[in-house]
């Protein structure tokens, strides 16, 4: 048996090109990476080795979904929110620093052959996870609608990117009340009365998951969600990152790192 042909996960040193703030608590990390590690499916993630920072140790790697990548440019990008020890350590990376990453990991989004119209809907940093899916849909000539939700206008991520991929980018915020589930449901129903929708894709919001479970169920439309869970190995060995899923009438534990991070909305359970 040819064991070499199985190898598709790489542990590589990358070089920091930039690591800039894009808002108060969001940063954009751009890395130069060996191209062998860049055969990436949108929705896949990398496991990042956080540097030690001011005596604070992040022993385990941190999983992070890919924001953008280019095999040709040998570049991979992450968009992250500073919220813990690990991301704070990553935020301290400077240009030319060496940063060790493992990936690509997990199973990404699937665009079925028959998808002609898809809707991406996400909130906050969840939009970063959907960004490479937007690129892929654009390349495939798929009609793309993007609904971006956030606390305020300042927290709307990647709007310029999505605008370059789609002429139907809708933004909703908590500030003006437009991001309420009531309004989102109305928005989606209006969209479905004006065009057909072959699939929904989402990430990052429990409330949007609940809404999409309802919408997808009522209209018999498939949907996919990228989920998060705390991880140790990131590869499938340790069974740390399990979440419950409803499969038929059973509740089954699946590993987010290995069976996911992308799952069917019909099987995903709100948390």
């Amino acid at each position, binding site marked *: *048996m040819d*064991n*070499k042909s*199985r*190898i*598709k*996960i*790489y*542990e590589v040193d990358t070089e920091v090109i930039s690591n800039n703030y894009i808002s108060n608590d969001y940063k954009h990390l751009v890395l130069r990476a060996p191209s062998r590690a860049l055969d990436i499916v949108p929705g896949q993630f990398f496991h990042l*080795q956080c540097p030690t920072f001011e005596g604070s*140790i*992040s*022993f*385990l*790697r941190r999983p992070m979904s890919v924001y953008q990548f280019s095999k040709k440019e040998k570049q991979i990008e992450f968009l992250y929110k500073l919220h813990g020890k690990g991301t704070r350590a990553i935020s301290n990376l400077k240009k030319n620093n060496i940063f060790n990453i*493992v990936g690509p990991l997990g199973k990404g989004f699937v665009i079925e052959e028959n998808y002609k119209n898809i809707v991406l809907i996400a909130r906050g940093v969840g939009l970063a996870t959907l960004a490479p899916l937007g690129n892929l849909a654009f390349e495939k000539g798929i009609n793309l609608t993007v609904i971006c939700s956030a606390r305020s206008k300042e927290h709307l991520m990647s709007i310029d990117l999505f605008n370059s991929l789609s002429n139907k980018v809708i933004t909703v915020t908590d500030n003006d009340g437009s991001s309420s589930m009531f309004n989102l449901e109305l928005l989606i129903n209006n969209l479905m009365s004006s065009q057909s929708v072959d699939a929904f894709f989402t990430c990052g919001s429990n409330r949007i998951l609940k809404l999409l479970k309802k919408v997808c169920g009522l209209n018999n439309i498939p949907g996919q969600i990228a989920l998060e*869970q*705390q991880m*140790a*190995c*990131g*590869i*499938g*060995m*340790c*069974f*740390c990152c*399990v*979440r419950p899923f409803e499969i038929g009438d059973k509740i089954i*534990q699946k590993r987010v790192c*290995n069976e996911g991070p992308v799952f069917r909305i019909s099987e995903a359970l709100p948390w």
Partner: protein
Amino acid sequence: MVDLKTNIGDIILKNPIMPASGTFSEDLASVFDIDLLGAHVAKTITAEIRSGNATPRVSESGYNMLNSIGIPSKGIEDFKKNILPIYKEYNTPFIASVSAPSADGFAYICDKISVPGVDAIEINISCPNIEDDGKAFAMRPNSTFKVIEKVRSITNIPIWAKLTPNTGETIEVAKAAQDAGANALVVANTILAMQIDIKTYKPSLGNIMGGLSGPGLKPIVLRMVYQCSKVVDIPIIGCGGISNFEDVIEFILAGSSAVQVGTATFINPNVMLSILSGIKDYCEENKVSKISDLIGLVDDKNTPDTVALMEIDI
């Protein structure tokens, strides 16, 4: 050319590096050719179907990890149908790992998996995440003896007893395992630990307590290997916090015939390969032609005399 071969009883390993149970699966073949390893050690299975403990299942503490995974298991049939065939494709000894709530339970599952393709069975009598308060058979010589004796009576496949650092009776437990018929000792498992989030006042693990692994565990387990190697004749497989080739050499000098690498693989999935090339280079530089020549070579003969407590006149 360095000879890295090492024997665990009748089982010849091409090198002394194998993964620790629970930190390895066929998924690692997506990272490197796992046929380069000395052995493959499967995740522990139980006869009953178990879903494992509540999340969070891991947390970190300095350069160490706490886990309370809790042995999720799909049972014996799933193991035979879906796990075992994968490893038959490799030219590497395959070690199953089992747990059970009683000596009879251990005997039952060992009987069921004594099948071609299983080269040895690791008897996990040391997982701190199954019983309340981390209790495990390997904490006492009596309960260790009962389990191993029962398993020995039911299978001819080599059995490796996996010991625990959560005991004050390391030597007695090691002897009990040998006397009951174990073919090797795996020394050891994780040490019972816990951690509290000072913001939420909640334990960091869903199971409250869990097992600590990582570099902090290494000197503790190294001491256990040293103690065990003084009192048993069966081979010892060191396991605990091994992260680099220096750790491996230390464990071999303390009396290990082979080692298991666990948590380090989570941090660097290629670490077992780096360790392999590290021990090869070490042997070449130090003119060691056979790594097995180093087993138990710790030089503890000419240590300085203890300074006796002196009486002080007041």
